[in-house]
């Protein structure tokens, strides 16, 4: 089977189709931006996008994403290294501390803004609620997503 990760079609060996998707990304593809936080889908550090929808990859098998379009944090910046405006907004807003939730937060924020170009601050607060952060109290993460709204219009 084939999955498309960050725009690149990737052939998956038959032996790996039953593998946990998060472990497959991290161990087979060395895409370590998605993190293992709780292993049960409660914390969102493993968030990736499947067809632009946020998904907790620790709860999926590789098989579940056959023929799907996957975005991981490694696919957010331009190939030349230019950051996505949302990533830059995270930096400017001081939304990053330990950074462990950051990849998931960027992706869940990105998916939300793709669907909702004119959200209220409270909409953003609700949108990121599936993902946990223990450092920031979420405030500067919400600031960052709010600051990037204009880039999605």
């Amino acid at each position: 089977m084939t999955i498309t990760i960050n725009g690149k079609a990737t052939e998956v060996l038959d032996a790996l189709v039953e593998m946990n998707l998060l472990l497959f990304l991290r161990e087979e593809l060395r895409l370590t931006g998605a993190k293992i936080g709780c292993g049960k889908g409660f914390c969102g550090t493993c968030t990736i996008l499947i067809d632009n929808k946020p998904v907790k990859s620790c709860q999926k098998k590789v098989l579940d994403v056959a023929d799907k379009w996957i975005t991981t944090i490694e696919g957010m910046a331009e190939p030349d290294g230019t950051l996505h405006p949302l990533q830059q907004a995270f930096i400017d807003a001081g939304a990053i501390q330990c950074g462990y939730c950051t990849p998931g937060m960027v992706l869940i924020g990105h998916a939300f803004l793709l669907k909702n170009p004119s959200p209220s601050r409270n909409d953003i607060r609700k949108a990121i609620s599936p993902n946990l952060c223990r450092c920031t109290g979420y405030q500067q993460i919400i600031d960052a997503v709010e600051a990037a709204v204009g880039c999605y219009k």
Partner: protein
Amino acid sequence: MAESKIKSWRNDAREKVTGQAKYTDDLSFADMLHAVPVYSDFVHARIKRIETKAAENYQNVLRILTAADVPGANRFGHIEKDHRIFADDKIRYWGDVVALVVASDRESAIKAAELIEVEAEALPSLHDPEEAIKPDAPLIHESHGSNIINTHRIRRGDVEEGFEDSDFVIQRQFQTQFVEHAYLEPEAAIALPRPDGVIEIYGSMQHPFSTRRFAAAVLGVRLADIEVIGTPMGGGFGGKDDTAAIVCARAALAAKLTGHPVKIRYDREWSIRESYKRHPYRVDYKMGVTSEGEIKAVQCKIIADGGAYCSTTPWVTWRSTVQCCGPYQVPNVHCDALGVYTNNVVAGAMRGFGSPQMNFVVEQMVEIAAEEVGISPVEFRHRNMVKQGSVTVTGQKLDDHTVSMSEALETVIDEIDYENKLKSCSFGKSQSDELYGIGLAMSYRGMSLGAEGMDFCAAIINAQFDGSIILEVGIHENGQGAQSAFILLLADELGVDRDRIRYRQPSTSTIPDSGSTVASRGVLMGSNAVLAAATEFKRKVSAAVSSILKCKAQDVRFADDRIYGRDEHHSISFDRAMHVMFLQQQFPFAFGEYRAPRVSWDEKTGQGKAYFTWVYGCQAAEVMVNKKSGRVRLTNAVAAHDMGRVINPGMALGQFYGGMAMGSGYALSEEIKIEDGEIVNLNYNSYRIPRSVDLPDMSAIFIENPDPNSPSGAKGIGEPTNEIMAPAIANAVYRATGKRYLKLPIKIES
């Protein structure tokens, strides 16, 4: 500064926002093995035999390690060497590790771990510290001779006289809970046997130097034989000191014995099961006040559940005694604190370190007392709070820095419009289902380790001949932004662009042991070490370039990436100056060290200069309480803290918001539940830390008063922000419901 105007910066932001930052589990080495801990079903038991045969024969398993395989010391700890690397004589809590399975893949190791059988004689277990201190209670550590880990006391004045002089004597009992740090990155470690015989360790830990001590002791080698590499860490909050170091030490042992790199990565459930927590306290508090609202006496007894091992319990409870009266002047104090062994999960350091519990007590007691006396709680605080020149309950005179307690209180009152909003509080009565309340709390906090321990820190500035600069400081990057604060400070001191400076997270082999990155001491100690190094660096450079600039060395100035002589016509670029130094065969290199000013302590009386400086802060909270569901919703929160000097505003804000958020979880939702010795809430679905929707937009106000005790001006902010939200919420809940909640977390009966 308006919060929205602050553009943040940190040196490691790009790698974190792109997913490139390599945390411990993101690293991999050739021929790396995987190890997992083995727990038993016992809570308190004498070990007879650990049967490992079946596990040894399981596929891909290389080795099973138990206490018998430890070549050095199997028992370790910061204070008491009682924490077992592997349970040896007994199992003392449900999180005790009896063995480590090493296999070529993690899955096999986990399967094999299930095959290990522990034969043991179950012993009666103790889960209530008050039971544990009874004379006939079974001993958890027989060699200790008692279940009392430690005692601390404060004896000041004469409390009996103080109570006699009081018009009101108020007595309450308070209780707090076990709290999990809930860092998002569970414990992880990789140990690598190097060809030169050194074991190299990468790990998720906030104290590389204690990790090195633990690992060296376990292996029975010297400190120089272990090198701990600073690695990006997914949160610590005080929780990645001893337990995290033990995980690293076990990896080191496995690496040493197998000759392979070994990785240990914890599942969340293992992390919550084994790692230490914030201490539950039971506090009996008696306060005597006059009808004028003056506190005359305080008597308190603190019983802290230390769990199965000592960890930092004596230090945590020491801070609780020093701060047992909050930021108030009390002439007569009698305080006893006990740390107690139980068969509960270990309790140790967590953000606040003995202060969140006491602030929850004191900041409600002052409000209860004010009400008895019949004056406003704000007025009551003003009458009793420490002011410039006041003497603390341990006899320390606060005259060598700005005592800004009143400033912090007034700032928050103004910002949140406290006095007006007081009028709208429901006190249990409302037309709708919602009850409204507002509350505040304040504290002072002794900075850094105080009389707990050795307190000094090193920094190294190593400029290159092209003008680039490498900076190292003996403080660990826990995620708080220590590195960026040090870069910004150095850039400011040397008058250079920050992009010129590369931070190198030092290893334990490249910089002197500068202690633990705890106690809000990172920026305080680190910034002053950087400042000392910068001063020495400028002295060297000035001497080298003064002849070119045709001035005396003391007239040389550093600004705008240039070095100036008497005036702007005499200058050379910073790059050129570095080049010149190399041509003169002089290293533009400086070592700086900062020693905390002297503190003192008399263990018998509990008197002395406990901390070399203090910070002051106040927080307020507004809540809505639903009468039917009992749910408490935090609708607004404001904080003002004096932190000396703000170096990196965006990151300082993050400390405020994060600390307040964590404090709200402490107040309302977080509680490790232990049933028959087993923790029942082992993951985030049942251990509930605040989510974004549980929090309002918060406001943070910096108060900056210079402090001669800290030459850089910076003090610290990590813990102060986390230690008063719970009492602020408790006071708000009181004004909403008309009822006092003296137990954490606050649970409202609907």
